[in-house]
C-alpha cells in the first residue's frame, strides 16, 4: 500500500476531478424527533452536500448494489413461446465517497456469498465491478461494536481510504486508478511525524469504542443454547417487521416475483429483498411453515449471521455497525441478544 498526505482544503479538488462520474456519498437527510441530524447515502451533486464527518448513516449503501426491488429480466410473450431478455441494470461506474470501514467490510462479506465459486450473481457483480470506493475514518458511536466483530479496520475492497489528521488527510492508496487521481492533486509522501500522528489517531479512535460483544466460542455457544428460553423472550419482543434486514448492510436474502403486463405481451421477473423475520419467509406451498414462531425466525437470523456464515467463510456476517439495533422498533440490539444467550450458559452451570 502506498500513502500520501494532502492538505484538507484540497479535498474539494479530489471531488472535482471525480465529479464527472456519479458520486454517492453521505449527506444530511433531515432530523429525527429529538432534533438530531440524520444522514444517509445518496447521489451528491455539490461538494457542499458531502458530509464526510457523519457519525453514521441510517441505511447502508446496500440499495446501490442490491436494490430493494430489481427487475432481473423481461419476457416478450408470443403465441407459441417467449423470449427472455436479461439486463444486469449496471450502466455507469459510480464513485462511493466516504464509506466507513464497516460498510466496506460489509461489501467484502457480500462478495463471498454473491460472487463466490458457486453460481456467482451477475446483477451484483456488474454493480460491484463498477464501484470506485473512497473510505473515510469514523468516530465510533455508542452503538458501534465493529471492534468486537473485527471489522473496525479494512484491508482491501477500497481504492482510497482517508484519515483525518487535523489539518491534512492521510490517504491509503489501494489501486492504480486511485494513485492516478491522487497524483493529480497537490500531495506528498507522509513524513515521519505524520506516520506518528496517523498511529495516534488510530489509537484515539480505538479508545472511543464503548459497545462490545464477546464473540469467544460464539458458534459453539449458539449451538449449545439452541433451545434456550431466552430466545423465546426475545421472540415475544420481536415484531417480525423486518426493519433490521432492511437497514443491515449484509442481509441479502430475497424473493422472486413475476408479473404480466396488462396487454399480455410482456412479463417481468422482479427480485425484492426480503427478511427472514417476516412470517412467510420459510412457508412452503400447501401452507407448512418451517419457522412459524417469531422466536424461531429471530433465532435463525442470529444463527445465519453469527454461526452459519462463520462455518462457511470463517468470519461472521455481522459487521457490528449497530444499525439494526438503532432502527428496531422493539429495541432489540445484537450486543444485548448475544450477551443474554451467553448468560443463559452461565445459569446452567
Amino acid at each position, binding site marked *: 500500500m502506498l500513502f500520501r498526505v494532502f492538505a484538507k482544503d484540497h479535498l474539494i479538488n479530489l471531488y472535482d476531478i*471525480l465529479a464527472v462520474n456519479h458520486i454517492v456519498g453521505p449527506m444530511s437527510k433531515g432530523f429525527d424527533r429529538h432534533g438530531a441530524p440524520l444522514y444517509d447515502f445518496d447521489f451528491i451533486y455539490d461538494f457542499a452536500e458531502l458530509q464526510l464527518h457523519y457519525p453514521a448513516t441510517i441505511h447502508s449503501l446496500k440499495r446501490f448494489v442490491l436494490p430493494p426491488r430489481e427487475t432481473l429480466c423481461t419476457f416478450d410473450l408470443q403465441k407459441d413461446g417467449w423470449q427472455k431478455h436479461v439486463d444486469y441494470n449496471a*450502466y455507469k461506474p459510480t464513485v462511493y465517497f466516504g464509506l466507513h470501514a464497516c460498510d466496506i467490510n460489509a461489501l467484502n462479506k457480500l462478495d463471498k456469498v454473491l460472487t463466490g465459486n458457486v453460481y456467482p*450473481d*451477475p446483477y451484483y457483480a456488474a454493480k460491484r465491478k463498477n464501484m470506485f470506493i473512497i473510505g473515510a475514518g469514523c468516530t465510533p458511536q455508542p452503538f458501534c461494536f465493529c471492534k468486537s466483530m473485527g471489522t473496525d479496520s479494512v484491508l482491501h475492497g477500497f481504492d482510497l481510504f482517508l484519515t483525518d489528521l487535523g489539518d491534512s488527510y492521510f490517504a491509503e492508496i489501494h489501486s492504480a486508478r486511485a494513485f*492516478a487521481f491522487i497524483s493529480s492533486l497537490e500531495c506528498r509522501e507522509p513524513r515521519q511525524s505524520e506516520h506518528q500522528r496517523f498511529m495516534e489517531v488510530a489509537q484515539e479512535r480505538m479508545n472511543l469504542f464503548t459497545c462490545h460483544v464477546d464473540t469467544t466460542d460464539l458458534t459453539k455457544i449458539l449451538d449449545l443454547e439452541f433451545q434456550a428460553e431466552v430466545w423465546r423472550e426475545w421472540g415475544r419482543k420481536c415484531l417480525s417487521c423486518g426493519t433490521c434486514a432492511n437497514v443491515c448492510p449484509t442481509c441479502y436474502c430475497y*424473493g422472486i416475483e*413475476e408479473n*404480466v403486463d396488462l396487454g399480455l405481451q410482456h412479463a417481468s421477473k422482479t427480485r425484492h429483498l*426480503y427478511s427472514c423475520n417476516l412470517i412467510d419467509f420459510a412457508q412452503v406451498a400447501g401452507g407448512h411453515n418451517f419457522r412459524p414462531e417469531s422466536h424461531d425466525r429471530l433465532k435463525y437470523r442470529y444463527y445465519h449471521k453469527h454461526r452459519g456464515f462463520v*462455518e462457511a467463510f470463517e468470519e461472521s456476517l455481522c459487521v457490528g455497525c449497530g444499525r439494526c439495533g438503532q432502527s428496531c422498533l422493539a429495541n432489540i440490539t445484537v450486543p444485548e441478544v448475544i450477551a443474554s444467550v451467553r448468560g443463559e450458559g452461565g445459569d446452567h452451570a
Partner: protein
Amino acid sequence: MHKLPFVDVLAEQRDHARRQDLASFEYTFQAEITNVYPLTATEKLYQLQIIDPEQRQRFSFQPGQFVMLELPGIGEAPFSISSSPVRHGDIELCIRAVGNLTNFLARAPRGTRLGISGPFGTGFPVEKMQGHDIMLIAGGLGLVPLRAPISAVLENRSRYGNIDIIYGARNPAELLFTYQYDMWRQFDIDLSIIVDAGDATWQGPVGRITTILEQRIAAAPNIGKNTYAIVCGPPVMFKFVCDMLIKAQLPMQQIFVSLERRMHCGRGKCCRCNIGSTYTCLEGPVFDYWSVMNLKEAI
C-alpha cells in the same frame, strides 16, 4: 477530470470460467410440455422436453436433483425430477396444484413453452448403493422424488440386492403412479402400500407407514449394515421412520432423506431454503441422516 471506465462483467478478459458462470446465472432452457397425465384429482405428471436437441442431450442429472421451473409472468418454483436420468432432457415432473404457478400448470395444454434451469442440488448416491439392499420409504408426495432413484435402480436391477418400497398415502384416491406398481413388482421389488383411511374397494392394509415398516423390519432379519434407506415424506414422518431405521442397525450415513424447503433461486443466494444456514439447494435436498441430525430444525 477523470472519467472512470465502465466495466462489463461479461467482457472481462481474465476469467473465462467465471464469465460463463455469470452469463448462465439467469439462463433457462426452453422446454415444452409434450404430455400431461392426470394421476389423481390434484396431481398431474408432466412430460417435458428441452427443445434444443443438443441441450437436451447434454442435460444430465442425478436422481434426487431438482430443476427450477419458470413460467414467464406466472412464477418460478423448484420441482424434483421424477424420471430416469438416462432420458436426459426428456424429464417428468409430478406436480400438485396448490399455488399460482401449479394451478396455472394444471390448466396448461400440451405444447406450452416453459423455462427450466438446473439441475440443482445433490442426488441420491445410487451407484454407491450397488451391491446392497435398498429400502425406499415414501409418504404422500414423497414418492415423486423417489421415482427417479427407483427408475435408476430398475435399469440396473442385477447390481442391487433386495429392494423394498414402502409407500403410505392418506387414502386410495391419493395414491400416485398406480399404473406402475405391477411393473415394479415384476422387477422383483417388494412393494407395500398402506393408507390412513381405506374406502369401499380398498383391500390392502390401513394405518400408519410405521406399522408396515415395523412388519418389514421384523420379517427381514438381514436388514441392517448392508441396507441403504431413502426416505421422503411430510415433515412429521422423517423422525419416526428414521428412528426405526436406526434401531434396525442401519448406519446413519446409509439413510438418505430428501427435504422440502421454499426456494426462490436454487443457486444458494436467496436464503429461503436455509436450515440453520445450510442451503438446501446446494447441500441438499438430499441429505444423509447424520447431516440432518447435525442441522438444527431440519426435521
